[in-house]
């Protein structure tokens, strides 16, 4: 999301999900909403039924790709080349929105000079997508009246993740496809509250509400509210904390509800760090790979056991309500308050609504939100005051950057951190399936779901399977430079020759033992989406 923040101002989707029904073009990029976000896919399907044209950029032949007017089956890691190529076609044909570029953006000349290097021949070579398809995608997108780009983790989970988002913003800006209903950029995130968790500040360089710790006026505001001095130096990112643990410099970690020992890429590294740290506290609702490493495990309360709010992918702050008492007696917010008090910084709230009131007083985009207002329906931020209705469409007149202008940023193709070679000839793409969720600690304990999807399967094309002599549901070994796992193979035309697919939902086949340590240098998001593997019949 750092990408959208750089180009447009806010790291968030620009429109409401329900507006998808009225778009006339959908450019779906690196996302398989039918599996990852099924209810968003219903809105998209509604848009398609209403006549929207469809462009799909995905190396996998997904449900949407099968129905696409143009399917850009690009090589993993070639997103920037693809998008630069499309922008170049648009500019060469004069299909851009000149008025929008002139009035609402800056940096256009740099972009123009850069994308000129991405002529069709070069882009075809880099992406593997036929020229006609690139031209057709450019034509359809630029000629649409109400075009939405919907992108997913296939865009962000690369070492160029942030840049990929910027490249998408460049495309939308060139055509002026922002700032109107059913026209914009929607990011589909992985976990339910990624948006809220980013908004509210468990980040090393920003205080809640994306307010930089480096700014004295920001620190002053929080110091006054919290009654402590705040260090102006940004803290360490999670990756850096783990690195320092291995070096012996980092001593204590409190992990709230995460499972890096299964979901982080390059598991050997993470596990080494969790072993090395002197004191590890993990709070979770269920045992995970990470709780094994803990010195103290604290029981977490599930979403059914506590009051609070989540902020969804369209910036809507919605209520979570306590349906049953916390099984272990305390909700997570109460545990944090108690621990803080014991450590000498008293925290006391009677109800999470009081925490939200405090948030509203410190974070402008949440300024008008309180529990009474969101009792019936959630509100979309920015909602700065108590009488503000919330914001369905961002940037209708100004971008939230200095000067109100959006920024073009010229980018170059870099590719994946690890490319297939002789020894590791296949590209492993990891992702999600509809039935399971993340580390599977929750869905893996839902009997019906376990019955229908009991184990990990390696999705492989018929061509590759027959070349390797592998039959459907036969055991194979998948190995990378970092590790090896054994799984059954599932032959499917969803995988293109050369690419194979695994999820990371199962503890019996830890696919992240294989994935690489390459990361987006800006956000630290790991390159889950592609690494090089070899496959051997067992």
């Amino acid at each position, binding site marked *: 999301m750092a990408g959208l923040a750089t180009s447009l101002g806010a790291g968030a989707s620009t429109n409401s999900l329900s507006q998808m*029904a009225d778009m006339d073009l959908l450019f779906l990029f690196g996302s398989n909403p039918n599996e*990852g976000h*099924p*209810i968003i896919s*219903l809105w998209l399907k509604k848009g398609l039924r209403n006549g929207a044209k469809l462009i799909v950029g995905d190396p996998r032949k997904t449900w949407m790709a099968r129905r696409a007017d143009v399917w850009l089956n690009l090589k993993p890691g070639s997103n920037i080349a693809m998008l630069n190529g499309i922008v170049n076609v648009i500019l060469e044909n004069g299909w851009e929105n000149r008025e929008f570029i002139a009035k609402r953006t800056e940096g256009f000349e740099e972009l123009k000079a850069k994308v000129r290097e991405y002529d069709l021949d070069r882009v075809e070579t880099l992406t593997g997508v036929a020229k006609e398809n690139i031209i057709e995608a450019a034509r359809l997108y630029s000629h649409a009246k109400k075009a939405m780009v919907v992108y997913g983790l296939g865009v962000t*989970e690369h070492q160029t993740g942030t840049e990929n988002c910027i490249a998408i913003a460049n495309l939308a800006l060139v055509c002026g496809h922002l700032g109107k209903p059913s026209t914009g950029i929607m990011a589909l995130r*992985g*976990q*339910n*509250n990624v948006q809220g*968790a980013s908004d*509210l500040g*468990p*980040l*090393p360089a920003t205080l*809640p509400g994306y307010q930089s710790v480096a700014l004295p006026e920001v620190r002053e505001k929080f110091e006054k509210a919290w009654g402590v001095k705040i260090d102006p130096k940004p*803290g*360490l990112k*999670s990756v850096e*904390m783990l690195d320092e643990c291995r070096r012996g410099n980092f*001593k*204590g970690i*409190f992990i*709230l509800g*995460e499972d890096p020992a299964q979901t*982080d890429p390059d598991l050997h590294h993470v596990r080494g760090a969790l072993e090395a740290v*002197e004191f590890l506290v993990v709070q979770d*609702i*269920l*045992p995970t790979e990470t709780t094994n490493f803990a010195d103290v495990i*604290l*029981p*977490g309360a599930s979403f059914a*056991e506590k009051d*609070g*709010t*989540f902020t969804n992918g369209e910036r809507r702050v*919605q*209520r979570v*309500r306590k*349906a049953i008492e916390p*099984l272990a007696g305390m909700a*997570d*917010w109460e545990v*944090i308050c*108690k621990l*803080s008090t*014991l*450590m000498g910084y008293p*925290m006391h709230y009677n109800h999470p609504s009081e925490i939200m009131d*405090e948030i509203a007083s410190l974070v402008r985009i949440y300024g008008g939100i309180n529990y009474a207002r969101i009792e019936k329906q*959630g509100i979309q931020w920015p909602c700065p005051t108590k009488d503000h209705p919330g914001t369905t469409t961002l940037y209708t007149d100004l971008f939230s950057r200095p000067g109100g202008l959006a920024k073009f940023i010229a980018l170059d193709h870099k590719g994946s951190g690890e490319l297939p070679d002789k020894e590791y000839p296949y590209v492993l793409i990891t992702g999600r399936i509809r*039935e399971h969720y993340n580390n599977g600690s929750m*869905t893996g304990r839902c*009997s*019906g*779901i376990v019955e*229908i999807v009991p184990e990990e399967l390696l999705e492989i094309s018929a061509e590759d399977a027959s070349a390797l002599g592998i039959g459907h549901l036969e055991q194979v070994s998948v190995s990378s430079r970092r590790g090896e796992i054994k799984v059954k193979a599932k032959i499917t035309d969803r995988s293109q020759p050369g690419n194979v697919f695994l999820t990371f939902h199962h503890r019996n086949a830890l696919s992240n033992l294989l994935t690489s340590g390459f990361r987006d240098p800006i*956000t630290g*998001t790991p390159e889950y989406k592609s690494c090089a593997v070899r496959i051997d019949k067992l």
Partner: protein
Amino acid sequence: MGTTISGKLVTIKVNNSVLSCQSGKTVLEACRDANIKIPTLCYDKRLEPYGGCRLCLVEVKGFSKPLSSCTTPIEEGMEIITESDELTRLRKTSLALILSNHPFDCPHCEKTGDCQLQDIAYEYGCDWEGSNGRDAQLISSTLNGEKWDLPRRDDNPFITFEPNKCILCARCTRICNHVVMAGTIDITGKGFDSLPDTAFRRPRSLENCEFCGQCVSTCPTAALTDRQGRGKGRKYQMKQVKTTCTYCGTGCNFFLNVKNNKVVKVTSDYDAPVNRGNLCIKGRYGYDFIHSKDRIQTPLIKRNGKFYEATWDEALGLVASKFRELIDKYGPGTVGGFSSSRCTNEENYLLSKFVRCAVGSNNVDNCARV
């Protein structure tokens, strides 16, 4: 998933009162918005109008025959009557036809108390006690009609199908084909033998079905029910708590149905701004982890590589003193926290505050970054 229709206002007259409504609505929608009751069985606001059950008939001035309100768009100046003896008679006829092939096992039926057919039959007094002439024929056809006698099907983990209770409203097949676009079920067979079923009557499996339970959520009777929720309680015995899904970032709302401090079922929330009553497999059927026997129920402290149960006071006391000790010895910069995109906004805010205030560093991060 209706789209918002922002059109001009149209004035109509319903049962002699004047209503001002958004153009583009149907007579049924306009009446329901104004809290005027019209019975329906084949209508679901997530679906396109169908006009199959013939219960929503209304009289419209200028038309000699009643019209189905769910398929008739409102027009300026329209005059509508929703209740009359003739409409009641017509509705009773349609109901009698439906009931003529419906089992009367209401005492132990899963849907009792939450069944649209039962409610409408009750409202229209389908016992027809003391009636004569044409109505008397209705009774006998209702009670003595030829009935299906098909076995109940529990051939998959999530959805139970009791074909005998199907009233062929096609809500399930329409939602599956038009909204989910999964194409799992269709009305198969002809005439008296038609049924909503899968191709070749194969069990639902991942090969043909998404297990979203959308078909169950729309079924007006007990023909389709959530298998895991069966026998766990009547709707009126359960507390319905509206909440937001814990899985993906779509932010669907639904009701957790709670009985005896246990979540036993999930049901749709039609007013939800994002999902409008729709759910996927995880939202609808992904709740049993809440009461999993594996849940961590008490704090655990590791000693010599083994975990021992502890009280909250012991565990939090240990954590607080150990963190304090590390901070005092090595400095606040050596202690930090990871928070989760699965936790609430309030918890994320508090963790950020905790690390900055109680620990005294900025070492707080959202570890997944996805």
